[in-house]
Each structure stands twice: as C-alpha cells, then as structure tokens.
C-alpha cells in the first residue's frame, strides 16, 4: 500500500470508524472493475457519512465508485481512475412505507428481494425485478438502469421513482421530487440519476411508488419456426385489448440457453423438459388478473398464436411458472455464463423493425462464425448475446467485427445500440456505448453540474463521462 492510500484510509476511518474501511488486498478484489482494484473500500452507515466521504474525495481528487451488491459493475466502461469503492450496503433501511398511499422510501443498499418481503405483507410489490434479483440492491438496480420483463406493463424505474436524495460529486446533499405519486415541483433531477451508473451522484434515498401484487398470474408460451411469426404474435397481442405483464421473444438458441445447465445453476427451480420447444423461436408472455381474466387471456392468446402459425402453444403449469419467469428475468446472467467470453449488445428500435434487426444480428453472428442468442422484449428492446468459444484473439476479432456491423445496421434502422457486457479486456476495442451521439454535449453539461471534479466513476459512462 502506498503512503497516500494509508493516509486516505486513516482519514476515512475518522469518518466511518476503522471497522468500515477495508484496505486489505483479499477483500478488495471483490470490488474490482475491469481488473482495476481500488486501494480502499469504505462502507458508510449514514447519508451524513456519505457527504463527508465524498467531500474528502473531492478535495483529494480521489475517484470513487458507489456500489451495492456489485452485480452490475461490469456494465459500461471501467473507470479511468479508481481510488475508492463506496459500498452502500449498510444504508439499507426502509425509512418510510405508507401502504395506504402505495409509497415507499428506501435507502440504496436495501436488497430488492428483502424489500419485496416487506411489501408482500401488504400484498404489494415493486416491479423492479431486474437480473441478479436475488442479490441486487435497490440503488444498484436503479443506478445501473437495467430493465426488466415487467416493464411491458409497469414501465421502467423512471415511471415509478418519485424522488431521490443524493450526494453530488462535491459532497453536497441534495434532493428532487418527493414521496407523492404526482408531482411537478422543480427539476426532475432524480430522473438523471436513473441509469447514470453512479457518475452524477451517490444515491442515499429513493422514493418509490409501490404496486398491488397481482392476485394471480399465468404464463403462456408459443413456439414458431421464424422470428417474423413470433413477432407477428407480438403485434397482434399488443393490438388486442390484452395487457401482458411481460412479453419476450427468444431465438432458438436463447430458448435453449434458458433450459441449459448454465441456467439451472443460476435458477435452481427445475424447468420441466417440455416447457420450451427445441430449436424454435419462442414467445413467452405473462398475464395477471382474476381467474376469469386469465381464462380469457389464455383463450385469446391461443387463438392469436394459432393465427400466427405457432407450432406449439402451451400454458405453463403452476409449478413451473416461477422457474420460467425467473429464467426470463435472468437471461443476462444466463447468457454471460454460457460462454467463456460473452458479449451482450442492448439495442432498441421501433417494434416493427425488430424482425429486421434480429435478422441482421443473427446474420452478422453467422458470418463471423459466432454462436449467438437473442431476447427481444415486446417494447422494442433487443438483447443480443454473442457467445464465442473462447477468450482468444480470433474470438475477440470476430466479436468486434460482428458488433461493429450490428451497431451500424441498427443505426440505419434509427435504433439505439450499446454493448453493456463483454470481457473486460475487450472493452477498449468494442464500442461499449455505441456510435457517437449528437446529444453528448448536453450530457457533458449535466455531468459538469453534478460532478465538476470528475471524481464519480470517471470514464465509465457514455462519451467517456
């Protein structure tokens, strides 16, 4: 350890007590981002401590990364400089919960699955069921901006985060929004924090709208011999009066991954062998409501699937519902575990262009002799996992070539594309944040307001912010 970091550690210990400062190597490795290990980790126990820590870091020009369960730190670019990990898992209280108003205030370190237990006592829940759900903290889910299958019905965090408290890169505690379900008072700064990956502020409290838990849900699955037919069913379902909670389309390879050993290692709940058809494009949709509503959904779903020439239509039986819904939710970690060097692109296009985008992506993978798996959400978001056989130079070259091609083609479709996940050592050669964006200059202005010293995860975000 350098003299400088010893001094830093002792200063930090003055803020949070020595027990909550880690400067020993073995523990530090758990905080690595892209192979970069921070010299120290600090675990504040209050928002006031966060303020003190950030003020100190700001004055010493120490680059820090806020983190929770650290399941999504591999997204984006590694920080240019990484002096301190700010572990927020001790800030884990539910500070207010008004079930009658369906509102909640929670600290960022609260684990989502524990939060759901609190809400379940009042038959409520948060539709923030993101990948790595079992470990993820509320702050991590929101700061990373990852989406969930449930966005089909409930929207994304920006639709149900009501307000936030955060600490800016200068160590100033600030807030925006409130804890009421409708509010237009002042600038919606909390919306900027969502998906900012900790580069604008350290979130210290999140106010959320909660939702009544569905009385019952059903999952229906339809298999097709082409992506076009599966997407045609998507169009029909969303033109119909049905309101699915989730709607995902899996490529044949992706459907296979959901049923793989890699998936079972991540989601131990067993999946009946006949739940997903082999070598088929598969649409999985979940519906909620009363028995009558679900019967109606099944009837309409079967009819529409038939009209789209589905080769197989099934209702998932009760015992398997949780397993399949969880595997759909955990597609990202499943894909990451399915190759030694998975790279996952996230793209969004108008839903009518998904068929074309999927064809382009599949073709690019094939041309580069890469195994690949796709998951398309009903709202026009496509995750495309490139699954090379190894970490080698040739695999790297192929992934770069395929992803570059897909990025360019996606832009022609007026879509958005990034590569949030890939082997760390490939990130510098991949267009992690996609093609240059015309609105980058406006984002730069925002970064300069919230983090003028550039100490919050420098370089992690789009445009090197």
């Amino acid at each position, binding site marked *: 350890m350098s003299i400088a970091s010893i001094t830093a550690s002792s200063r930090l210990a003055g803020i949070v007590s020595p027990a909550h400062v880690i400067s020993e190597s073995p523990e530090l490795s758990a905080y690595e981002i892209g192979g970069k290990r921070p010299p120290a980790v600090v675990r504040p126990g209050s928002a006031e401590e966060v303020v003190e820590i950030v003020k100190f870091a700001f004055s010493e020009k120490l680059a820090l990364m806020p983190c929770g369960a650290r399941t999504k730190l591999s997204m984006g670019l590694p920080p240019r400089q990484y002096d301190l990990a700010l572990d927020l898992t001790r800030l884990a209280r539910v500070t207010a919960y*008004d079930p*009658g*108003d369906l509102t909640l205030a929670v600290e960022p370190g609260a684990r989502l699955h524990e939060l759901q237990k609190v809400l379940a006592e009042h*038959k409520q829940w948060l539709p923030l069921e993101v990948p790595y759900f079992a470990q993820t903290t509320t702050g991590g889910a929101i700061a990373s901006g990852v989406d969930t299958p449930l966005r089909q019905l409930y*929207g994304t965090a*920006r*639709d149900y985060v009501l307000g936030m408290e955060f600490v800016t890169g200068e160590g*100033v505690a*600030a*807030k*925006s929004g409130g*804890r*009421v*379900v*409708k*509010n*237009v*008072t*002042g*600038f*919606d*700064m909390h*919306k*900027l924090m*969502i*998906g900012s990956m900790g580069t604008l502020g350290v979130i210290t409290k999140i106010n959320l709208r909660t939702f009544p*838990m569905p009385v019952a849900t059903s999952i229906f699955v339809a298999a097709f011999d082409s992506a076009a037919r599966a997407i045609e069913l998507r*169009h029909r379902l969303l033109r119909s*009066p*049905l309101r699915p909670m989730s709607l995902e389309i899996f490529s044949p390879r992706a459907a296979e991954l959901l049923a793989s050993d890699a998936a079972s290692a991540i989601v131990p709940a067993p999946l009946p062998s006949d739940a997903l058809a082999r070598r088929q494009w598969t649409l999985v949709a979940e519906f909620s*409501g*009363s028995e*009558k*509503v679900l019967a*109606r*959904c099944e009837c309409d779903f079967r009819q529409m699937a038939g009209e789209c020439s589905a080769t197989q239509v099934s209702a998932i039986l009760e015992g398997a519902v949780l397993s399949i819904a969880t595997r759909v939710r955990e597609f990202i970690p499943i894909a990451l575990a399915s190759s030694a060097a998975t790279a996952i692109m*996230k793209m*969004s296009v*108008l*839903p*009518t262009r998904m068929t074309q985008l999927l064809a382009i992506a599949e073709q690019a993978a094939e041309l580069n002799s890469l195994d690949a798996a796709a998951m398309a959400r009903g709202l*026009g978001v496509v995750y495309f996992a490139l699954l090379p056989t190894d970490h080698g130079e040739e695999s790297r070259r192929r992934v770069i070539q395929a992803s570059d091609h897909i990025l360019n083609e996606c832009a022609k479709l*007026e879509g*958005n594309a990034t590569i949030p996940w890939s082997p760390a050592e490939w990130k510098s050669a991949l267009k992690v*944040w*996609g093609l240059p*964006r*015309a*609105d*980058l*200059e406006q*984002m730069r*202005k*925002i970064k*300069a*307001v*919230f983090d003028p010293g550039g100490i919050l995860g420098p370089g992690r*975000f*789009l*445009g090197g912010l």
Partner: protein
Amino acid sequence: MDPRLLQELKNLLGPEGVLDQPEDLLLYEYDGSVEVARPDCVVFPRNTEDVVGVVKLANKYETALVGRGAGTGLSGGALARQGGIVTVFSRMNRILEIDVENQRARVQPGVVNLDLSVAVAHTGLHFAPDPSSQKACTIGGNVSENSGGPHTLAYGVTTNHVLGLTVVLPTGEVVKLGSQAVDAPGYDLPGLFVGSEGTLALVTEITVKLTRNPESVKTLLAVYDKVDDATETVAEITRRGITPAACEMFDSWTIRAVEEYVHAGYPIGAKALLLIDVDGLREAVEADAAEVAEICKLHHAVEVRVARDAAERDLLWKGRKNAFGAVGRISPTYYAMDGVIPRTKLPETLRRLEKIGKKYGFEIGNIFHAGDGNLHPLIPFNGRDRDEFRRAIAAGTEIIRTCIDMGGAITGEHGVGMEKDHLMPYLFTAEDLALMHRLHDAFNPSGLLNPGKVLPSAKACGEIYTRPAQSGQSNAPAVSSTSSPHA
C-alpha cells in the same frame, strides 16, 4: 422594446408573424392563473428554423423569450414576467407523423392535446395525458409543464409518454433528445426537459407514445352526505389495490356550480361526489366496478350510479371537464390551487382546508384528482376588492403549507411558474435549489428563456413574499386589467 429588434422579427416572420400593438398584446398578458404580465411583443414562428431565428435575435438584443402554447396554464408559466418576446406556437400545429403499429406520434408543439387523440381515434389509440383544458391546451405546453389530468392516475403524466424532443437551446442550437425507440443511451435528457417549464429550451418537435383504448370502461358516480365518507372511500380503494383509471372528487360547492352550468345530472345538495372510471378487459372491469361500488356503499354512499352507456358516461365527465368554466360563472375571479398529498391524508387535509377557508372568510371549493392525492382547492374572491385578493393569496399559501406539512408537494400538475417560485424554499433546501440553479444555468446561463420562473431568485429565499399588483381570473370570462383591484 428596441424598434430594430421588432423590425428584424418582422423581417424573419413576416408582418403577420409579429404582434406589437398594445391591444393585441393584452390577450397575452394572461394565462389561466391569477398572474398578469405584459410582453413587449408576440411572435408566431412557423418552423424550427424560425424559432432558431427568434432565439438568435433575442440573444442579439438581450431580450427575454417566453414560450407559450394556448395560455391555459395555471401558474403563469407562459407569461413574460420580465417582459420581452412571447413565442406562440399556434402556427406550428401539425401532426407530423402517426405510426399506428408502433403506437407513436410525432407532433409540433402547437398541436392541441385533444386533436391528437381525435386524429388517432379510428385506430383505437389515444394520447393518455388528458388535462381538463385538453380541448385547448397544446402538447408543447403539456411537455413544458409535465401536465397531468384525471386519467393519469392509471396512465401516468406527460413525461411517461414522451420519448423524444427536438429543442432549440438558448444559444440557438437545435438538439434532438431521446429517440423514437425506447431507452436512448445516456442520461435521461427528455426526463429533465419535460416539466422544466420552458426554462431550459424551446421545444419544436415531440415524439409521444400513443396508448391503446381499453376494451371496456365503466363510470361510477357515488353520492355522499359527508365529505369524510368520500375521502375514506378513496383511501380504501387505494388500500385494496384497485387502480381506477380515474377517481375525481367534488364537494357540495362545486357540485352546485357544475350542475347549474353543465346539467350533468349531479345531485345538488350532496356534500360530496366521487366520479370513478374503471377500465380494462371486460372481465376485469365487471369485477372492479362491483368492488368499487361495494366500497362506496361500505362508506355510506347514499347512491352509487353506474353510467349505462357512453352517452351517460360522457355527460358525467362533461361535468368534470367543464368544472372550471362552471366555477367561473359564479365567481369570475378565483384562485385555482394545485397541491399534492399522500392519499392516506385526504380526510385530514380536507378538514384543514375547510378551517383555512373559515379563517380567511372564503368558502373554498374542492374539485380534484382524489385518486392520486392531487388537490385543486378553488378560492373564489371578488376581483375588485383589494383586501379580498390579498386574503385569497394568503389562504392559498396556507393551503400549500398544509400540503407540505402532510408530506406532499406544492404542485401536482400546474407547475411552479411565477405562482409558487417563492414557495420552493419550503420544500427544498438552499443546496437543492442551488443545484437546480446550476442545472438551469448550464443550459440557460443568461436567463434568456422564461426568466423568473420555477426557481426563486436568490433574494426571494426566506423573504416575505409580496405579490405584484394584479387582478386574477381563471378559465373564465376575461377580466380586463381595468377591473383589477390594483389598477
């Protein structure tokens, strides 16, 4: 105003694109609020390039520039508080694109809210934000104020329906924010700009989501002898996890006002009414409507009426949508407030509002979005009585303080504008406001755009507020400035 600026504006927009005669400007010194401020001139750009030209001229002559849609806003957002140029978007009112399959529309800011829903009605889609002024208000105005409406309870406010914006920054730069697809990478720029009340940029194009019409809708009208019974009903509906599409409440004063004007069939003499929409799949609506009716009865509703058909439903809603006009008939000058509270605090808050009314000598009317706790107390006052105007403002401030005490916010959908900027310090710390100021200055450093809005000026913090001498009116027959108590 510098005559050279006026000439340059006329050169840019044509003589028909600029108003500068005092009698023409009169109309633009009002919006739907009780505020008044006269612009130096009003311009009507035809396209984004015109807007860029206007912005550049405003810069050249260092003149304030304020965007304006239909002027139905209720917080003075579209008024030229410090004079200058008001930019009205009525000539930019084209729907540029409707994409039925992808449920998108691209519109110019001057498109009237309801016109978009009418234009797509045959496709089974609609634009979900539905402010009560939707027959007049523009989507550009909705974007600036992040407008709500009765049905935002289930469907969300404007920001939940905006995907992309083309904006002209105060530098004259044209920037596209967001994208037509969901999840544009990077910071959520549309999320910041929607609801920034025209203080960061002028919006010249908007990409919105269109929402599928529900298969079935049932409208219920529940009648109460006691206000508490109605508020308790709302709390229980929320508690039971039913999300109606809309849940509106009227008190006796507004019931009478509305019924005498609209003849919607509201029972005059009732102490409170709830107007509730449930929508969705047929099967779900049947069950939800039955449960809502049961809850209403449980809380002593003396009558629960279910609209039999679309015509009856439209009539019941006509009462709600025309309520402000109805109030205007009784009291041409009134102060339409906007505050939000947790829904569990509804009964207590309404009791406190009644007390505030008594204290200041007003019968405060209440008509509001009960389902999301968004209150709209109406304070009728005599616009010719200077003292009464002051008391109305004082009562209004106390109402807003009450909302804050209850854990709420100072505006649910009308915006801060110039009405409530002085109340911001009650809700936000100096640090919060300083950060908002910096964010504002990052885009609008010289305060060219809509100066004096949203954020309190530094000297106003903690200072006792004295209102500029003006009269009030709201969505009612115009009160000329000569009738002002301060004229």
